[in-house]
């Protein structure tokens, strides 16, 4: 009996990687600069692996996914098609790392904007993101 039980257990463990992702998005922020904006957020996953494929802000400029790298003090930013969200792990969109980049200025006439995160497997998640200035500074709205 022991061997089939272990076999069943290992099958269940192997199956983890193929289980459905269970995602939550928190701390979504639009960091608005003059000619562009960065989108930061924390994406937690209680299930199987998934990938972030797009971020959208309704009625605003397109957003592409970027990865910033810092090598020997040189900053490089590259567009990527998708960003990995590991099994039972976290994708942290943050300054100096992976983030969304608005391809133009964001019209920030409200303190928050509706954002939609799209994934390879998981259903899209819509959330309101705080609009802030560089470094999290408050900005005047309606300009």
């Amino acid at each position, binding site marked *: 009996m022991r061997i089939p039980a272990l076999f069943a257990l290992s099958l269940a463990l192997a199956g983890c990687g193929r289980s459905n992702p269970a995602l939550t998005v928190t701390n979504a922020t639009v*960091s608005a600069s003059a000619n562009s904006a960065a989108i930061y957020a924390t994406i937690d996953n209680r299930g199987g692996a998934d990938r972030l494929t797009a971020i959208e802000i309704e009625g605003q400029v397109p957003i592409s996914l970027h990865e910033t790298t810092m090598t020997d003090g040189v900053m490089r930013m590259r567009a990527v098609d998708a960003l990995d969200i590991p099994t039972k792990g976290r994708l942290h969109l943050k300054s100096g790392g992976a983030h969304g980049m608005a391809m133009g200025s964001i019209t920030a006439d409200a303190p928050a904007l509706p954002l939609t995160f799209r994934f390879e497997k998981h259903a899209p998640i819509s959330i309101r993101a705080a609009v802030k200035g560089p470094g999290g500074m408050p*900005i005047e709205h309606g300009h």
Partner: protein
Amino acid sequence: MSLRALRITLWILVAVAAAAAAVLYVQRSSQTSDETKLALGAPFVLTDSQGRKFDSRSLEGKPHAMFFGFTHCPDVCPNTLARLAKLRNQLGKGDDAFQIVFVSVDPERDTPKELGKYIKLFNTPVTALTGTPEEVADVTRSFGIYSRKAPTEGGNYSVDHSAQVLLFDANGDFRGTIAFDETDEPALQKLRNITS
């Protein structure tokens, strides 16, 4: 000429040669001590956000923090400038404690007007500079700043560039850098060092 007059003339020549050697020696040794202070960058003239000529000699006597970036940069550049503004506040010596100097590495897109719009975001005095591509290339080269255009989707481009903040004291001597991933406390100490 008598023998005596010749001897005096020769001694005068020896004295002149000795004095010249002494002057040369002093000049050379003072140059050496300048070099040990890590001179960085050559004098330059660029254009500020109001379209006026900006001569780097106006920084003489003022501690300053120099950062190279571009206004289409969404992440590292605005966050670096916002942090300098925050640290200058924390220093508690007012906006004159040190001057924040932003030099564009994207002179084609960063016109003086764009720079003006950009620096308003930081709610603190920032000297933002641009110029012709040649003028900017001369400045980046003399300050040891790497910058290169990197094409992105839709015919746009990003600019890969050195992201350290360069710190200069009131004598114009280069005193070190602040790295992007450095925490605030050592960064603040370095700013204290250039402003004390």
